[in-house]
């Protein structure tokens, strides 16, 4: 009889560990001047350095150092006054030099923490996730596995390598062991990665797009019997490509390990892969021997010794912390807790912020993103942000405020933009969605309505103002909803001598 999650956590206490790799958004790579543009033609952003050609030498990108320090400071880390690059030696075809230039026992930042808040049975609760280290390294190339049945690595006939990504600066953020989360381990893991992503975004050091791989998470997990004061063997789950997956991967691994232990089995220390479809993990290829990375100091690079003056300058230039900022925005926009949380849970805060920044009213911005756009995104199976830009949403909202669009028309405009028919203005023209505000056009429709309902018109003339509703309705109908009802009313009453 398999244990459920609830049964597992009655018996076992989880210990979490999270390793997050972040691609920095520098213009050039970590050790060479190649561009870092995502999605470029294969092997066009490569040079002797990042291809590992014989004789080529690395040169450190100053911006990457600065970004790393920013990250460390934002995570309450100490900044090492003297740190070095090391070579991590192992062979793999996606790594041009067959060593990764990384940092080993001397990371640039160490000993920090990040507080994350989650909902518990007793209400909101804060967990402190301690940061072990933040270090710099370089990304690898990308391989494409060709042939075989699956297009996956196993059974492929051969592989094709693109080194455009090789050498893109990476920052690796490693937590200490996170204990005491109990049944909330999956939520804490997700909340940590979310909070980390928000901080990185606020620092503007990375695109933090999990789906593009600019933020990647490995989740380590072990279980030990409750109150045993021991530490179980951990597994390391890779391939966790979304915030939701972080939570699911931890939960899935807790259930797997719990059942394994319960049936008298042993957890082995291994790398596992998260399966998006089932939420389970499967083992990676076990290595015949443990790797021996033979780390040593990178002789081609010199130590990094950030002066405290520089570090303080960076510290003083840090943006508002996301948690603080959220509190401020909530107050500024006067949004109730529940609605604000809804926006956060839908991961739409940044969209709303940007829409407001583009000139829209905060309440309308929130309601559009959480309402119509989320609904359409849901239908399309995409994220709202993928559908439409914040600038376009702001434009639509402004047109509503100016009376150029009705809510109904605006929905059509948004739909048109999402269908790639053009900008809101272009959609309005193409679909002929403009509010009919031209007096003569409206007057024509009004006169037609009066002619069709002379009795009603007479009643209005006689002072029965509510009777005008039927005429206004007729006008709205004949203009296909594109007329501004208030304006119609005003013109009609004036025409009938009641204005």
């Amino acid at each position, binding site marked *: 009889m398999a244990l459920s999650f609830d049964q597992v956590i009655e018996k076992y206490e989880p210990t979490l560990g999270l390793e997050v790799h972040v691609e920095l958004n520098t213009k050039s790579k970590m050790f060479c001047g190649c561009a870092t543009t995502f999605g470029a033609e294969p092997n066009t952003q490569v040079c002797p350095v990042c291809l590992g*050609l*014989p004789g080529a*030498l690395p040169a*450190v990108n100053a911006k990457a150092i600065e970004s790393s320090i920013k990250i460390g400071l934002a995570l309450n880390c100490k900044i090492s006054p003297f740190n070095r690059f090391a070579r991590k030696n192992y062979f793999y075809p996606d790594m041009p030099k067959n060593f990764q230039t990384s940092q080993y026992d001397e990371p640039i930042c160490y000993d920090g923490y990040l507080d994350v808040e989650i909902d518990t049975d007793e209400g909101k609760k804060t967990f402190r996730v301690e940061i072990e280290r933040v270090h710099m390294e370089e990304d690898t190339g990308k391989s494409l596995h060709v042939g075989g049945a699956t297009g996956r690595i196993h059974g492929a006939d051969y592989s094709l*390598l693109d080194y455009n990504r090789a050498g893109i600066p990476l920052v690796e953020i490693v937590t200490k062991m996170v204990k005491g989360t109990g049944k909330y381990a999956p939520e804490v893991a997700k909340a940590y990665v979310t909070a980390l992503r928000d901080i990185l975004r606020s620092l503007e050091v990375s695109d933090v797009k999990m789906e593009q791989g600019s933020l990647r998470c490995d989740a380590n997990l072990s279980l030990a019997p409750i109150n045993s004061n021991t530490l179980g063997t951990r597994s390391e789950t890779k391939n966790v490509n979304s915030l939701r997956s972080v939570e699911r991967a931890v939960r899935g691994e807790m259930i797997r390990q719990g059942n394994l232990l319960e049936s008298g089995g042993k957890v082995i220390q291994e790398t596992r892969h998260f399966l998006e479809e089932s939420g389970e993990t499967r083992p990676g290829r076990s290595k015949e021997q443990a790797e021996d990375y*033979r780390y040593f100091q990178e002789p*081609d690079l010199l130590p990094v010794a950030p002066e405290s003056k520089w570090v303080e300058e960076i510290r003083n230039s840090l943006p508002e912390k996301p948690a603080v900022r959220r509190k401020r925005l909530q107050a500024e926009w006067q949004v109730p807790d529940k609605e604000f949380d809804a926006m956060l849970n839908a991961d739409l805060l940044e969209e709303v912020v940007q829409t407001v920044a583009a000139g829209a009213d905060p309440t309308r911005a929130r309601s559009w993103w959480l309402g119509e756009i989320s609904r359409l995104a849901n239908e399309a199976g995409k994220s709202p942000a993928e559908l439409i830009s914040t600038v376009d949403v702001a434009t639509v909202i402004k047109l509503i405020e100016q009376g150029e669009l009705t809510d109904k028309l605006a929905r059509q405009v948004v739909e048109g933009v999402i269908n790639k028919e053009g900008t809101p203005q272009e959609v309005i023209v193409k679909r002929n969605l403009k509010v009919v505000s031209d007096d003569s056009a409206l007057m024509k429709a009004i006169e037609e309505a009066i002619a069709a309902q002379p009795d009603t018109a007479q009643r209005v003339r006689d002072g029965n103002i509510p009777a005008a509703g039927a005429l206004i309705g007729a006008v709205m109908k004949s203009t296909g909803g594109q007329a501004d009802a208030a304006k119609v009313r005003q013109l009609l009453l004036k025409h009938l001598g009641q204005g």
Partner: protein
Amino acid sequence: MTSIFSTASEMAESLKQKEISSVELVQMHYDRIEKVDSGVHAFLHLDKAGALAKAKIIDDKRAAGEKLSPLAGIPLALKDVLTQKNQPTTCGSKILENWRPPYDSTVVERLNANDVVILGKTNMDEFAMGSSTENSAYGPSRNPWDLTRIPGGSGGGSSASLAAFEAPLAIGTDTGGSIRQPAAVTGTVGVKPTYGTVSRYGLIAFSSSLDQAGPCARTVLDAALLHQVIAGYDEKDSTSINQPIPDVVAAAKKGEVKGIKIGVVKEFQGEGYQKGVLNRFQESLDILVNLGAELVELSCPSFDYALAAYYLIAPSEASSNLARFDAMRYGLRISETAGQSAEEVMRITRGKGFGPEVKRRIMLGTYALSSGYYDAYYGSALKVRTLIKRDFEKAFSQVDVLVSPTAPTTAFKIGEKANDPLAMYLNDICTIPTNLAGIGGMSLPAGLAEEDNLPVGFQIMAPVMQDDRLYNVGAALERALHEKWGGNILKQIPDLNNLVGIFAGKGSN
């Protein structure tokens, strides 16, 4: 009359006076190469068309009255460890056979910018690992003084090309003595500049923290002229020193040792040193004293550990540097059967593509860095490096330069030490400490050993960024020795034309 026997500075003067054209000069050297290189085997590759075309352009520039660099139009032999765009660059290894780099090393860029004409690429021990050039995958080079002997290594092709008058200038690289020891055994001049003064960009790394390219020539002044061309800050090499290079040419022209304090390293004498080597060394010391220098005997006790430290540090770095030769992106790829995995192909290619010495050092370095052995081996070697630096610092607080024989023996026979790696390693005993400390060193001819009539090298070492001292002391000694010998030591070299026939074709296997 300018000939292949002229010095580079004499050739430069003739070019300037338009007594000869660069095309003629370059052609003259290719004629010589044609005649003797089948026996000497200094070159792995010649770029005749490219060099002659380049020479023509330079002649045209000169005819048009353009201001040219001092070495414009002079031919040069380039060690095959430096990348040259679209020219074969093998490092003496099968694993890079037919590889043509898509980029120029900074040294080559500087040579090109100064209109030096690159004749071709010279032979070397595979990946610069060796002291005899016998480890080249393309067969050994031979010493023009005696074609049955080694021309030194790893830059034996460069030194042999100079002694055989196939080129007036050459580039070498020196990780543990690979410029200086070949210079010593061929009666030529070789300088390892201060680490960080000649860019390593495009120098195929053997040991990154030790490698340094430098000038090879037949006179101290020629070496200085070439040194000036190749040295200087380069942002592509992070270990490059961003400071002006001392005026080595002025120093080479000065050659004045009156009042200069010269330290004689006690550890570099005695057992294991050939008698003729010690005699020539002593003779040179006497000359320097006569010229007004003051001798100070010094002890650098940690130098006894330099060789051991070197044979841990260099292989460790090499094991990592050479990991990139994996049959995936460039170079040799050997697969034995269809369907072999990338990993198998890597293993097979590296097993067949690397020679025995390279494999030995990769294995040694892999061991020294592996978990459990790091502290005892690599870690300890780095500490010895500190001690050696301290010994040099202490010594240079007392003297201006240090001197020693360059190598304990003259050129040995090809094959003599091929099966005894430890005996081979001892060749570099005097040159290695400078590499570990990053300082500059020069070897210049001190005469011939009486027992075998083969050249002996005299080594000068100077503190970091004081390479001009090498040239000043070297020039003074050279002037006195030339007076004594009635000219360059190479005037005494046997006529190669008579010997080459016997060895023709034996260069490559």
